[in-house]
């Protein structure tokens, strides 16, 4: 029997707004427990939810990036359930009228082709409190309660672990480049639940679906799904039935393990939240949100290509949104884009890799790295000297011009002194002059090298070359 997996994904993205979805409680990560809470987050009596403008702007931008229809009226509903992670006894969400519907994104497949994945809905809601479970107690931290979330629900059109991984990768790129979220799966800013079933190829009816939770990396999404496909296929192959259940991915064994059986679906008794009257979004508001949106990775890529960078360099620059932002700042120096890109891709990236740090922790400011690269371009320092200066800059982000002077590496651009050295070299190498006159270009390179040697690498190579050529013509 040949099986076809049917996979749908629900992705929760935690927004990096300053305040929460329905309260002005602070959004911050890693703070002491219960220090970022206001009365609304704790559901104290008499408190009322008020919708966060930036969260709505963010949701509109993501909807637009995923080609969705945007609802110009905001309606919120209550999802009722009784659990300790929910102080109000209900979560405010958008069950009946999600802000975004019927969208799609295109993902890149292994063979270089693209596949369109349709997206059913995108809605806004609030995060729950964080529960820490030990062997006999649970501890509650309300810092996370109320943080704005967007939930993105795909149609069940994914067919493999790889496709699902590429889909999540694309969505992560969208939300990080749009500045909506830091998209860190390992920290729970982007969480992914997978619904997966199998059916005999050619069948149109769906099989019994299994939900997989706790997938905290792209690699694990792929592994968990591929494992689950073979688990379910084996079950059916041997005449067993797939049970409707929730499983989690176990990192150590690389297998999915049973969490609980789903006997019947929970009735959340959804109804419109009477505390939030419908909000009308004007055409202008929606358009402004879209037009002022940060660039998506694809748009950046196209812009970099126009600067003359090759596809490979571009892809390295946009692999990390923060690196692309650093590069964009460097571009403002107006130095040669290719030279700037080379420094970011090779020298800067090497430091990041070596120290395991992000570009945000990189010690050299855009300003100072920009100055150094301009010095190279102007021929004030050689590449070799620039790398020495770069090493020093890593220590304290010092101004490269000061460092060049201190290290005595600033190139000699004094015309008279270079001319003296040129004359000395020419008098010692009469044969090279003849070779040059006979059209041997290599002679010029040799002579420049001799001047550089004489100057202990201090002569400005560009100026040396220019003066030398002029002098040779005169002789």
């Amino acid at each position, binding site marked *: 029997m040949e099986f076809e997996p049917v996979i749908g994904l629900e992705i929760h993205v935690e927004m990096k707004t300053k305040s929460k979805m329905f309260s002005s409680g602070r959004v911050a990560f890693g703070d002491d427990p*219960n220090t970022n809470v*206001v009365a609304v987050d704790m559901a104290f009596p008499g408190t009322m939810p008020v919708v966060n403008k930036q969260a709505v702007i963010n949701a509109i931008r993501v909807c637009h990036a995923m080609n969705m229809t945007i609802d110009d009226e905001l309606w919120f509903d209550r999802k009722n359930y009784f659990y300790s992670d929910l102080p109000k006894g209900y979560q405010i969400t958008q069950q009946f009228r999600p802000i975004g519907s019927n969208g799609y994104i295109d993902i890149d497949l292994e063979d270089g082709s693209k596949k369109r994945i349709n997206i059913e809905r995108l809605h806004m809601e609030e995060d729950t409190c964080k*529960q820490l479970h030990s062997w006999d107690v649970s*501890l509650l931290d309300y810092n996370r309660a109320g943080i704005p979330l967007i939930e993105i629900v795909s149609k069940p059109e994914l067919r493999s672990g790889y496709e699902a991984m590429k889909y999540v990768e694309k969505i992560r790129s969208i939300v990080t480049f749009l500045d909506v979220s830091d998209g860190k799966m390992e920290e729970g800013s982007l969480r992914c639940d997978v619904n997966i079933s199998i059916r005999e190829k050619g069948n149109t009816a769906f099989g019994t679906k299994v939900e997989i939770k706790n997938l905290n990396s792209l690699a694990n999404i792929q592994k968990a799904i591929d494992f689950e496909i073979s688990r379910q296929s084996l079950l059916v192959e041997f005449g067993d039935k797939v049970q409707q259940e929730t499983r989690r991915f176990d990192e150590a064994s690389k297998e999915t393990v049973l969490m609980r059986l789903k006997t019947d679906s929970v009735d959340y008794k959804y109804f419109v939240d009477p505390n939030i009257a*419908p*909000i009308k979004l004007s055409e202008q508001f929606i358009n402004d949100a879209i037009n002022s949106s940060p660039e998506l990775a694809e748009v950046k890529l196209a812009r970099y290509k126009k600067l003359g960078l090759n596809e490979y360099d571009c892809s390295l620059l946009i692999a990390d949104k923060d690196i692309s932002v650093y590069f964009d700042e460097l571009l403002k120096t107006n130095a040669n884009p290719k030279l700037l890109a080379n420094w970011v891709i090779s020298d800067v990236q090497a430091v990041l890799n070596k120290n395991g740090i992000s570009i945000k922790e990189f010690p050299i400011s855009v300003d100072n790295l920009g100055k150094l690269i301009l010095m190279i371009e102007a021929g004030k320092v050689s590449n070799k000297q620039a790398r020495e200066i770069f090493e020093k800059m890593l220590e304290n982000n010092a101004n490269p011009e000061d460092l060049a002077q201190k290290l005595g590496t600033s190139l000699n651009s004094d015309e008279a002194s270079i001319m003296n050295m040129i004359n000395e070299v020419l008098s010692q190498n009469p044969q090279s002059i003849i070779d040059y006159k006979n059209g041997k270009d290599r002679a010029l390179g040799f002579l420049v090298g001799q001047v550089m040697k004489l100057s202990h690498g201090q002569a400005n190579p560009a100026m040396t070359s220019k003066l030398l050529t002029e002098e040779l013509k005169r002789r």
Partner: protein
Amino acid sequence: MKPVTKEILKESANKLMFDMSDEQYSALLEEFDTITKQMELISEIPNVDEITPMVFPFDVTNDYLREDVAQESLKRDDALKNAKDVVDGQIRLPKVVG
């Protein structure tokens, strides 16, 4: 509609793990009686099932959205004052998952 009885209220209260005095049950039953009568009144409207229920009393929208500015957090001790059991600044409960 199924009539609301004291047994139903007791069962619901029990599920939510609280109980009330007999006076409170009587008061609540009276309130339900009033509500039920109002519902019956609505049922008398012809073709009522075909009418879309209103969620809000007025069919209006507004355009107010809160600016994304964080305010000072509650003092932790104040925020957790109602909790019975607090450990390391967190509310402690019997374990809620298996």
